[in-house]
């Protein structure tokens, strides 16, 4: 093991790890809005929006993320969709994870006992107010846990954007191996950085989960 090399390349990998965090955070943020929109479509009273959302979710779930990424990056220009690699990584990540998050959100909302919604409606609250004041606060715990698992997958999937030459952790690691010929050291260090990122994500999820479910400990 070449420890001196590992120390030397650490700053470069940290910088690249930051790109991994950046691309994942942006994709997650955007993905949450996409997911919320999909939930709204899926619970619409009209059938066409429901079909649209279901079809979209099926396509995303039925194809590998890697293929989605290649399709948009290399196939996009043919229909006038030209994205720089970083933006492409964020967008494909967001639209991919959004589909999964929407299912997690819907599941969490449906897990709240129907009596809660009935009690709220019987007091005179509308559908939206019921969702806001009664259903979402109770679904939040489960939703946060499920979204957390997906966020972890998102971080790990971000290594795939190396294929469209975004200089994130995995891409930087490959570049460093090209110049140092030390795959064991470089990959071990990059793996360690993924672990650090993912533990940070898990810590945040746990914190948010506890906040959202404080009422159950009272």
């Amino acid at each position, binding site marked *: 093991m070449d420890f001196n090399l590992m120390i030397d390349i650490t700053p470069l990998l940290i910088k690249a790890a930051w790109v991994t965090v950046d691309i994942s955070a942006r994709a997650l943020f955007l993905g949450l809005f996409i997911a919320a929109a999909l939930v709204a479509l899926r619970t619409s009273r009209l059938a066409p929006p429901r079909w649209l959302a279901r079809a979209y979710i099926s396509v995303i779930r039925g194809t590998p993320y890697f293929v989605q990424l290649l399709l948009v990056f290399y196939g996009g220009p043919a229909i006038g969709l030209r994205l720089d690699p970083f933006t492409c990584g964020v967008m494909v990540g967001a639209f991919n994870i959004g589909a999964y998050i929407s299912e997690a959100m819907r599941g969490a909302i449906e897990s709240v006992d129907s009596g809660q919604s009935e009690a709220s409606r019987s*007091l005179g609250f509308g559908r939206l107010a019921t969702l806001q004041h009664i259903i979402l606060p109770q679904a939040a715990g489960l939703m946060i846990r499920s979204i957390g698992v997906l966020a972890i997958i998102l971080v790990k999937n971000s290594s795939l954007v190396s294929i469209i030459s975004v200089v994130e952790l995995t891409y930087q690691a490959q570049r460093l191996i090209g110049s140092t010929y030390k795959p064991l050291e470089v990959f071990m260090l990059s793996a360690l950085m993924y672990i650090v990122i993912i533990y940070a994500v898990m810590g945040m999820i746990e914190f948010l989960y506890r906040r959202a479910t404080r009422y*159950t400990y*009272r």
Partner: protein
Amino acid sequence: MTTSTDTPMVELKGVKKHFGDLEVLKGIDLRVDRGRIISIIGPSGSGKSTLLRSINHLEVIDGGNILLDGMPVNRPDLKGLAFERHINHIRQNMGMVFQHFNLFPHMSTLDNVTLAPRRLKGMQSTDARELGMELLERVGLADKAKAYPSSLSGGQKQRVAIARALAMQPKVMLFDEATSALDPELVEEVNRVMKGLAEEHMTMLIVTHEMAFARDVSDWTMFMDEGVVVEANTPDRLFSDPDHERTCHFLRKHLGSQG
């Protein structure tokens, strides 16, 4: 909107409801004058809960009319948001109490009671707090204002649920088997609160399995079976001298232990 004193508080005309092929309500007529207490008894699956839930539009009826203080509850002419506004307004005038309480577990007892007046009537939080404490006092739970529902007994939960329903100052209270999910020793505390409301001349519709309570508290008792009102009468008459064989049979089964 009519509010003359002879307008019945609740009126049902030929109310029909089916779930798929199963006809649950086969044309129910009912008139509840203000201040009256009607109890509805009958075997499981007789349609009595569905009837009560239909009045609150938690079940959408397939035929007939329901009027609350002269205002139609079901308005097939209104669609989408217009209907939502209408039904929210109607529901604010009815208090509903459920078998399984359905308290909001993420809120304190006081917040459960004050949520609707704060959010729906725009009541200031100090006024809402005062009202909430007054109502909790009335159901004997002022000391539990800060407690969360998970720390309450079933009887306490149901009393909070009653206070929550009262917070909107409803014109009528609907009780859907309010004591059925309670341990026998907790039934009395809820019944006492309901009796208190009866003494204050609150208009009430009570679906119950508690025959003794129905007899004691109501002005009029309806016996339902298989989606129809088999008979309706004063409780004294219905319990001691029913006209129909089906009623006799039901009462024999249910009065065995309660006399």
